[in-house]
């Protein structure tokens, strides 16, 4: 089932949060996609074990060995629209502005953020190759992840009804955040306000006749 708008918005916000956590707490200037895929995977896995609904990505077994196409798409959208710098992910001015303005959401969802913080803090500084190797060795049913066929589903979002706790976001904040993280709105706003910045303006009569 496709993610809802609410789930997508939360996923993108939490992904930006992880990039920021790596910089502020661990002084990592940038982070590779492989490492970010692992950090999100471990965070979501731990959240799901606690029945906390935070991240909503679906992960499958692939070469490195956990991968989410939805996470890749989200990161591509965020970098395409300069909300995040890439290809090695790095926060920029827009990332910081968004995280600062919505920091109240992190305070309100402390239980979920504590789980993400602990997973990121444990794994952020582990070299990517070692992290990949460790992930391959994770026990999975009768074997380890590395034994699974490529494409095997590994992790999927828990349903709201089964969760002990879900990421709380009110209607207003969800709208504000969706506007900030929407590529189309960002593009349009940039275009319109750039025209204004350059002094190009129309009168009421020119617009409405």
């Amino acid at each position: 089932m496709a993610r809802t708008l609410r789930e997508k918005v939360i996923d993108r916000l939490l992904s930006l949060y992880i990039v920021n956590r790596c910089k502020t707490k661990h002084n990592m200037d940038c982070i590779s996609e492989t490492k970010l895929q692992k950090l999100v995977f471990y965070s979501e896995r731990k959240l799901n074990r606690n029945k906390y609904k935070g991240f909503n990505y679906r992960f499958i077994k692939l070469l490195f060995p956990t991968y989410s196409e939805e996470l890749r798409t989200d990161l591509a959208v965020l970098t395409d629209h300069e909300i995040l710098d890439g290809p090695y992910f790095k926060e920029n001015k827009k990332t910081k502005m968004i995280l600062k303005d919505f920091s109240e959401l992190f305070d309100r969802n402390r239980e979920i953020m504590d789980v993400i913080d602990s997973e990121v803090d444990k794994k952020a500084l582990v070299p990517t190759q070692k992290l990949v190797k460790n992930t391959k060795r994770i026990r999975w049913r009768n074997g380890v992840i590395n034994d699974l066929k490529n494409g095997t589903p590994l992790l999927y979002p828990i349903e709201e009804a089964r969760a002990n706790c879900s990421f709380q976001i009110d209607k207003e904040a969800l709208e504000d955040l969706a506007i900030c993280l929407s590529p189309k709105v960002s593009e349009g706003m940039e275009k319109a306000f750039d025209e204004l910045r350059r002094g190009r303006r129309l009168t009421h009569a020119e617009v409405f006749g």
Partner: protein
Amino acid sequence: MRKFSGSYVPEYAPHFSEQLAGLSPDFVDSIEQKIDALTINPYHNTRFMKGQHKGKRKARLNDSDRLAFVICEECRKLGHDRRYNRCSDCDKTPENTLVIGYIIFGHDYKRGFR
């Protein structure tokens, strides 16, 4: 020159005009009415936007569509002119100007959220 109900005078981004071109006449009328209401009190029922859109306000047009704009007097008072908006002709723009920038369509930030 058109008479507005209030003392604020709207000016528009050319892109806003392009956005209007694709809309139904009824919706365009309702947007014009909303802008007229903003000329009376642009602070009423409008909120600051967040993140990279800081320094702009948004007003509700209907259930999902919003209007992004700037109140010049407020922009200068709060220092948004230097930090966020940076209009090149700020010094020539009267205090009572409302700069109407962009219609945020619900389908762009809801359904169009790929």
